[in-house]
């Protein structure tokens, strides 16, 4: 698992280590260059201080404090013969160079200063190793405290990172407290700029979830409520069947029980259809559909009811009327529209379905010769379980709600108005196929 915290902490520790090393290197370089200048100055001062003693060379006394600096003093007379070597055992270069010089002897680097006097040449030499040891010691003095401080810095880095990530932990804890029953938005109080868009998105998601859950709850509550009526009929007819006093009553009760079962099944089917045509669902399974063919199938489904009620049912279409959609859902839409029209149209009336492609997009029209719907009620009829008082055949009150849900899923607009010969006309305008 990737951890921002671990990554930040490792990055901070590596940074601290790199800075320590860099500081040590810079210190080393600088101390080296500074000690060089200092030692060079010292070499020259020593040479100058020995100037008067060249002739007394064998009796020169080397200051004891300079013993550990490994200075080597050589003196030559004016004839070029070495008259003095401070450390006789040491194999020194018998070579005089005036001024500063870098010399090499048996693989060891030396720094020397030669001074010309009246009596000869004085040369003071010192191994470069001594200078470097000094610089190293100075660099170590810088790095060691940094290394000793490393655990403290790691702890500090961990703390800083943890503190910086606190808002994330707050959001996590808040989200953990959310479930189906509590989908309240997260408080945006004082969140850093980096977290705020995330919380905003989460809140939008929570709001959509809440809306969906509320809709589901309302739907289930409505459905449970609506199921009571067919269940009441079932129970009533069953009890009437049980207590029927004679064969005629028994036959009648049995017939009515059958009708009650049919009604309960129809309601459950309509509820399922409505649940499946949630307009919020995406149109992922849309395919090219011929609306005219879907209309023809939808009309076939309602032919029997229309015939039983002596209603002239006709379809007028010029196929194909192409659009992108769900063929089965469109058939259901037409069936519900026609079923609704047939139920509200008095016997002997007519229901006309027409379907065509227009410049604005595919168009579906269903008009009947029923009583129509008053303008004031035209919005309410789309509500679930809303029934008009004038129903001649009891329906589920779901037909137009299903029509609307399917239409919305297809991006279509449903319009109710008066049919030319009185009655209701429903016009569904689909968006033009793109």
């Amino acid at each position: 698992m990737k951890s921002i915290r671990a990554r930040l902490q490792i990055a901070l520790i590596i940074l601290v280590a790199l800075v320590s090393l860099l500081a040590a290197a810079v210190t080393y370089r600088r101390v080296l260059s500074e000690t060089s200048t200092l030692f060079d100055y010292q070499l020259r001062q020593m040479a100058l201080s020995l100037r008067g003693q060249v002739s007394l060379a064998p009796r020169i006394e080397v200051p004891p404090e300079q013993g550990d600096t490994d200075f080597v003093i050589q003196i030559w007379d004016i004839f070029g013969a070495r008259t003095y070597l401070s450390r006789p055992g040491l194999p020194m270069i018998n070579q005089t160079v005036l001024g500063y010089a870098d010399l090499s002897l048996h693989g060891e680097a030396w720094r020397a200063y030669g001074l010309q006097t009246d009596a000869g040449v004085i040369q003071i030499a010192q191994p470069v190793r001594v200078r470097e040891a000094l610089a190293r010691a100075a660099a170590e003095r810088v790095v060691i405290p940094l290394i000793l401080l490393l655990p403290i810095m790691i702890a500090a880095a961990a703390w800083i990172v943890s503190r910086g990530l606190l808002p994330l932990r707050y959001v996590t804890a808040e989200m953990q407290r959310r479930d189906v029953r509590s989908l309240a938005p997260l408080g945006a109080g004082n969140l850093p700029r980096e977290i705020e868009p995330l919380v905003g998105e989460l809140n939008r998601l929570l709001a959509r979830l809440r809306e969906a859950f509320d809709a589901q709850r309302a739907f289930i509550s409505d459905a449970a409520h609506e199921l009571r009526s067919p269940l009441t009929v079932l129970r009533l007819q069953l009890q009437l069947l049980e207590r029927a006093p004679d064969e005629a009553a028994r036959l009648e009760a049995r017939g009515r029980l059958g009708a009650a079962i049919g009604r309960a099944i129809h309601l459950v089917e309509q509820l399922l259809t409505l649940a499946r045509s949630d307009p919020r669902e995406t149109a992922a399974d849309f395919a090219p559909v011929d609306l005219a063919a879907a209309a023809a199938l939808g009309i076939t489904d309602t032919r029997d009811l229309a015939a039983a009620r002596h209603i002239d049912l006709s379809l007028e279409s010029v196929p194909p009327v192409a659009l992108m959609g769900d063929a089965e859902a469109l058939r259901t839409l037409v069936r519900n529209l026609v079923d609704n029209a047939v139920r509200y149209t008095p016997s002997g009336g007519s229901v006309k379905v027409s379907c065509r492609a227009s410049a604005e997009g595919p168009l579906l029209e269903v008009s009947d010769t029923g009583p129509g719907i008053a303008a004031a009620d035209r919005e309410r009829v789309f509500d679930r379980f809303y029934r008009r008082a004038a129903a001649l055949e009891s329906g589920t009150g779901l037909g137009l709600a299903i029509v609307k849900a399917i239409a919305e899923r297809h991006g279509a607009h449903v319009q109710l108005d008066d049919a030319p010969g009185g009655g209701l006309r429903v016009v569904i305008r689909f968006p033009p196929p793109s």
Partner: protein
Amino acid sequence: MRVLLVEDDEMIAQGLQTALRQAAFTVDWMRDGKSAAAALQSPVFDAVLLDLGLPHRDGIDVLRELRKRGDATPVIVLTARDEIQHRVAGLDAGADDYIVKPFDLDEVMARLRSVLRRAAGRGDSSIQHGNLRLDPVTRTIERGGAPVNVSAHEYAVLEALLQRPGAVLSRAQLEDRLYGWTEPIGSNAVEVYIHGLRRKLGADAIRTLRGVGYFIPKS
């Protein structure tokens, strides 16, 4: 006993009517609030079974109006709404009882008898008068302890007369108890039922006040 059934669901109303008629009730059915309120202007009903979710006019509204008029006809609310606040609202509006759908037919009948009994000011639902005993639960009649077989219409006539012994009920009043508004009335049906009852219970059980009506003597 005549009951007004107010219910917009045709299938429920049909089933209830059958059940009530089998229990010797006379039933009138109204399917919306407006016509229910109009029907309740007439004082012929002994009880009302009232659905609340009605077209045109809500059942609660119809009930309030009835009580405002001072009409104490027993009302049982039949509804699919079972939340406490709905029950309280129904009872506060003047309902005598509250039954939630889907109901049990036996329960509806028992509650109906119960509100009728209370309306008549009796603790026991059976009526005892002399050696006659009428039990509305079993819809049986006993004479001196022996069961008497009567038809549903004969039972309804006897029940009406036994409600208030001594009170004279006209033929029209008895017809009101026997037939709903939509039912055809036989020309001399009441006389036929009275005759049948006298044959089974004794000629003196029901007296005739010529030109006025029928009554059961007080003692």
